[in-house]
């Protein structure tokens, strides 16, 4: 589904990604962990197409298509979803209007008719159950006045509504209390199917107690330096990142 080869990216001439390699297959959940500043969020932004970053080298294929040349909206329409670390507020634009515009833009790209108002509302009712989101939230403006936890829940709600092929969750667990964390995790687990995939970007192992990854990768200094199963996350939790750093420096 996703194949990243030797991806390099920089911001203002400062190289942040220095040759990332990663393959994600349908049905898989990957966790990308790593200390602060290792390039985790940059990787998410580059995949989504944020223009702040310049890709200097490498290739990213998404379902066989080279997405690095695509505009961010086309990547989204191809089925790539990013749950933002800091979801943005859009005052005056209702969640209903926003999501319906979004969904219809994606449908248009696929050559489908716009969804009718009644089908849309039905879809919303169904998907709300998956995320246990308060109806009040969906009637408010996009993220406006939402608490940190509400914003993150709202990201997962949008994910299940738009039903992408690949979801990248950037630090979705940060700032969540234990109840909200459980809700978010349930949303992701319920959504998981053999034909979609998830990349979890996280600093802590906590989220991985609820969403069990097939693979855990450690990103350090812009490169994936270690890959393992879910037990790698536990090891990191117990021992911290220092031993990884040490290992890496020994390699260099």
């Amino acid at each position, binding site marked *: 589904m996703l194949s990243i080869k030797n991806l390099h990216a920089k911001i203002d001439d400062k190289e942040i990604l220095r040759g990332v390699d990663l393959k994600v297959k349908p049905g898989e959940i990957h966790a990308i962990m790593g200390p602060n500043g290792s390039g985790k969020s940059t990787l998410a932004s580059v995949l*989504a*197409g*944020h*223009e702040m970053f310049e890709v200097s080298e490498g290739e990213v294929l998404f379902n066989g298509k080279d997405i690095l040349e695509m*505009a*961010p*909206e086309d990547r*989204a*329409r191809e089925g790539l*979803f*990013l749950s*933002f670390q800091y*979801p*943005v*507020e*859009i*005052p*005056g*634009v209702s969640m*209903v*209007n*926003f*999501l*319906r*515009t*979004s*969904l*219809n*833009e*994606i449908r248009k*790209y696929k050559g489908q008719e*716009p969804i009718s*108002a009644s089908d*849309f509302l039905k879809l919303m009712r169904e998907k709300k159950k998956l995320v246990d989101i308060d109806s009040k939230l969906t009637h408010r*403006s996009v993220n406006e006045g939402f608490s940190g936890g509400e914003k993150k829940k709202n990201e997962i709600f*949008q994910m299940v509504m*738009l039903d992408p092929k690949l979801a990248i969750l950037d630090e979705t667990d940060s700032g969540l209390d234990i109840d909200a964390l459980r809700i978010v995790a349930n949303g992701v687990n319920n959504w998981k199917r053999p034909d979609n995939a998830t990349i979890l970007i996280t600093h802590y192992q906590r989220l991985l107690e609820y969403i069990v990854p097939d693979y855990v990768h450690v990103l350090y200094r812009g490169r994936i330096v270690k890959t393992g199963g879910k037990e790698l996350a536990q090891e990191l939790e117990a021992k911290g990142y220092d031993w990884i750093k040490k290992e890496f420096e020994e390699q260099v």
Partner: protein
Amino acid sequence: MTTEQDKILAEVTKGEYKYGFYTDIEIDALPKGLNEDVIREISRRKGEPEFMLEFRLKAYRHWLTMEAPKWPHLKLPEIDFQDIIYYAAPKSKPKLNSLDEVDPELKATFDKLGIPLEEQKQLAGVAVDAVMDSVSVKTTFKETLAEKGIIFCSISEAIREHPDLIKQYLGSVVPPNDNYFAALNSAVFSDGSFVFIPKGVRCPVELSTYFRINARDTGQFERTLIVAEDDSYVSYLEGCTAPMRDENQLHAAIVEIIALERAEVKYSTVQNWYPGDKNGKGGIYNFVTKRGLCKGDYSKISWTQVETGSAITWKYPSCVLMGDHSSGEFYSVALTNNYQQADTGTKMIHLGKNTKSLVVSKGISAGRSQNSYRGLVKVSKKAENARNFSQCDSLLLGDKCGAHTFPYLEINNNTAKIEHEATTSKIGEDQIFYCNQRGIDTETAVGLIVNGYVKEVINQLPMEFAVEAQKLLEISLEGSVG
């Protein structure tokens, strides 16, 4: 609502000023230029009583002593007032009794604008008065309104048929010597609408006037007068368009509203005069005096305006809060693009006790345009417990445009509570990227964000005009991104 949204979005991709066509219709016009003879001739052609001619001549003589205002934040070219036609009428039968008698070309024009003159507009609950160039073409729905004692007709007809009401109220809120353009209008005004709502009557439909400048070199000077007697209510709308032309055309209107005890008047404008082309060539100069008088206790006047057109806009719909407990509201969206200039805002004059006013102004600047809010809140000595809240927001698209806020306060009573909030923001790249990531392209995202920003104001408009206003905003922003 959202299918409407889709239609709107589809429209956006088309862009351009879509009301820029010209109707080839026979015109009966006076020669260019202004003098007392021209004024006499206008008055004669309209079959006016003597008092009206006197009103005009007095205004004209006063105008000759005045100078064009210099204080607005506008680059105002010299206007040659002798190079303008002051009266132009579509040539047709002198009096229209039914729709069949309306010139088919004319009817087609209004159909094109989406203003059906047929009575089926009744279904939508809107009565329409259509003004082309200098004269009112057709007022729909008149008979139904007449049953309730409501008068809704062209001002020319009102001058002939209801001279007492005109004598009593015309010029009572905006005196002919009020300002330069008001004096000019009072001298040469050609047509417009008159609304009278008698005691205790709630007008059952939206009343609407549609103004269209068609003829070349013509100025449009319309005059609207609304009188709401005790315990009455009316909601009134006006829409404006003009063909695309290289030269500038002048529009100098006056609107007067009088609200008596416990009366409520809502006045909404969707103004889309031709703004000029991308390089600032052509376009309408829109110099308008709009003022409402809350004469009776507990009366209320509310202005809502969506301004997307005109090369230059200069207008300050105002409320004079004379009655105790009276209230005034002003909701405004002013969007400027390319080389447009707007200097607009409101005046809230608190005279009575316990009067309230609310101002919500949303400016949007794009291209190389300049957008100014200018607002006055005045509280007189005797106005105990006056309240005002003003919120002025500016949104900038790009870095070549400007937004300016000029709030004036004159408070002469220390029981007054006045609050003013102002913000200036840019559409954030992070907001656009967020939309992009949800599959929404940048142009659509800007439309979405702008319509969110103005929602508070748009919500004040009746439903179908709200849709039109949203559409206008989208179209007007075409090409302003990236």
